[in-house]
């Protein structure tokens, strides 16, 4: 009992909930009236309204995926797609309503902003309630703002890029996203500008039986460099919540973007998120992803290496506990000469959890002299848990170096015994082994998240024993 109590208290970092104090919550379900109402409330320009309506049609046409985790529990008639919090967009935390500010305080956002971030966006339910950027970045022409402001103030550039990297026909939940999207961040880094500390957007879903559909659009112009961090969490409710965000990244010639994600949704969340990047000549996008939360995740970040010499690296860890089915992976398309990709994925499943690594590597005919190296490892902590690896490798030229390594294993009794012989309890020994397994990934995460991940591993393991 004591152990369970400790676990509950610690999980409260994420699980605390505020009263469902919205300014406006749209009726549940999805139809033309709802989409039009959202569009009206957001004062969309015509072109955006048209995208929404076209996307709704697409949504109605597209089928649910016939592969992957079971989505039958998701009923759109039970989901409110737009929840406007009782707050406008603020540029000072003091102006954010107390209960919302308190939420982000607990999540450590304002503190991280002071210490280690160049700008912060904070979304609560469907709207961004706080956005900031350091003065000197503004002077260099860096834009970091919420998506709604971007649609108004940078409409040409948004119009040129919005739902272009991820087409609305991509899959059913992309279409849904485009129909009801709200919130998210827009970043533009001008040519040659290099940010040496990260920007971070945090997405918090508080409202029960609702969805979050934020849109993140990032353009890193030629020779520029950016590290962007996104975090997300939600308290746990009995009924299903939905997250169908969309991330579009444009990394122009010679530019660099590192996109780090810590996803810690509650275990009633369907996380059906889509992220893609278009990478130019000699440019690079690195994805660093930690997936810990949600009931079901289907998430496969994708890089299009369209410019000669483009590079991408994916470093990801997935941790599935009881009742979780996390279907994650990485997709890459090599579309030009001398492109390279490196994939390093790890998954941990315990207490009946299921992890699937699902991936695509496509090397087109024109991608001569390209390289791809994939390594995925899975660790199962008990006999009840599951782990699968489903790679698709579609290689259309001979002139490539390609390697794929996959290992699936159970936690080693010999290692546990060794550590216990040095006085560590069984739980501590397991946690040390799991942290060690995760270490090559956790060392890539922003430092505060690496610490958080280690704490999560402790908590998750404590919960799984007895």
């Amino acid at each position, binding site marked *: 009992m004591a152990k369970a109590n400790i676990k509950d208290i610690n999980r409260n970092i994420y699980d605390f909930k505020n009263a469902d104090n919205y300014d406006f919550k749209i009726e549940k379900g999805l139809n033309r009236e709802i989409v039009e109402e959202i569009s009206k409330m957001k004062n969309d320009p015509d072109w955006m309204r048209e995208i929404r309506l076209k996307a709704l049609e697409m949504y109605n046409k597209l089928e649910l995926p016939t592969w992957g985790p079971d989505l039958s529990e998701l009923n759109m008639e039970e989901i409110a797609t737009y929840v406007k919090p009782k707050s406008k967009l603020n540029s000072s935390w003091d102006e954010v309503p107390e209960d919302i500010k308190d939420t982000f305080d607990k999540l450590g956002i304002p503190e991280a902003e002071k210490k280690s971030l160049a700008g912060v966006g904070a979304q609560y339910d469907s709207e961004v309630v706080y956005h900031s950027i350091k003065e000197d970045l503004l002077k260099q022409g860096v834009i970091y703002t919420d998506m709604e402001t971007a649609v108004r103030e940078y409409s040409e550039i948004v119009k040129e890029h919005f739902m272009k990297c991820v087409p609305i026909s991509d899959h059913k939940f992309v279409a849904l996203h485009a129909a009801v999207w709200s919130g998210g961040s827009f970043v533009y880094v001008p040519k040659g500008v290099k940010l040496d500390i990260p920007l971070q957007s945090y997405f918090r879903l508080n409202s029960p039986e609702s969805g979050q559909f934020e849109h993140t659009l990032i353009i890193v112009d030629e020779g520029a460099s950016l590290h962007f961090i996104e975090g997300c969490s939600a308290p746990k409710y009995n009924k299903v919540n939905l997250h169908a965000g969309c991330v579009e990244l444009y990394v122009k010639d010679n530019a660099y973007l590192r996109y780090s994600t810590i996803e810690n949704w509650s275990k009633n969340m369907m996380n059906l998120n889509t992220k893609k990047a278009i990478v130019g000549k000699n440019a690079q996008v690195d994805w660093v992803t930690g997936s810990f939360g949600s009931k079901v995740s289907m998430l496969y970040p994708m890089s299009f290496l369209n410019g000669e010499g483009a590079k991408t690296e994916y470093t990801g860890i997935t941790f599935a506990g009881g009742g979780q089915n996390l279907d994650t992976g990485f997709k890459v398309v090599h579309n030009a000469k001398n492109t390279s990709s490196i994939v390093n994925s790890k998954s941990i499943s315990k207490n009946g959890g299921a992890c699937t690594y699902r991936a695509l590597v496509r090397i087109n005919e024109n991608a001569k002299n390209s390289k791809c190296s994939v390594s995925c490892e899975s660790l199962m902590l008990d006999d009840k848990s599951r782990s699968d690896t489903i790679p698709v490798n579609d290689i259309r030229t001979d002139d490539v170096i390609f390697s794929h390594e996959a290992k699936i294993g159970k936690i080693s*009794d*010999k290692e546990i*015994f*060794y*550590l216990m012989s040095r*006085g*560590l309890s069984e739980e501590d020994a397991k946690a040390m082994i799991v942290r*060690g397994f995760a270490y090559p990934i956790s060392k890539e995460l922003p430092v505060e998240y690496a610490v958080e991940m280690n704490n999560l591993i402790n908590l998750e393991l404590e919960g799984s024993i007895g």
Partner: protein
Amino acid sequence: MSKLLEIKDLYANAGDKEILKGLNLNINKGEVHVIMGPNGAGKSTLANVIFNNSEYTKKSGEIIFDGENINDLSTDKIAKKGVFMSFQNPEEIPGITTTNFLKVAKNNIDGKPVKIFELKENIKKNMEELNMNPKLIERNLNVGFSGGEKKKNEILQMLVLNPKLAILDETDSGLDVDAVKAVSKGIDMYKNDENAVLIITHNMKILQNLKIDFVHILIDGKIIKTGNAELAKEIEENGFSKYKK
């Protein structure tokens, strides 16, 4: 003489196979014991069974350490009572440096937070004595260590954790001359009147520079002969054939 370890009529299995068949052994404080025996006699099983490795099952008999029956204690509790085992094949654990691991282990074994500065001095001094590369301590535990480095690292852990009884399971196997010397030097440094050493081996190299009190011959799960250091010499010359059925 005060008793440290007393094993009474111990029967134990590895899986379905009976390995130990009525083993008796007494070790007092201040003594160095050696168990020799051919492959498959049960030498490593004995070390693992003392430490309650779940891959082995005790069928009957008693293991009494420092006056307490430890048959049913978990491995970590046995370690906390003061038993240490140097592994034949030490595991590689990524994600934690050897220093940090020693800190965690020492905290657990002593049951109180260790003073970092003292610990680091202690580690440094012992590494010098064992002729270990000082950089190893900042590398992850045993990861990418050579066979000799791993064994020295086991001896380093023994010296830092300072147990009452050190069981060295085939610590000398596969080592070069330098490493064998370092290991026996480490045992010499560790040894005092209040603790004891149990060396499990099938060769003599490691024994040459040590003062041995008892040599036991283990054949087919039982100790069939006990003698002094002379017995080890005899085995070295004639092998075990004389003692096999």
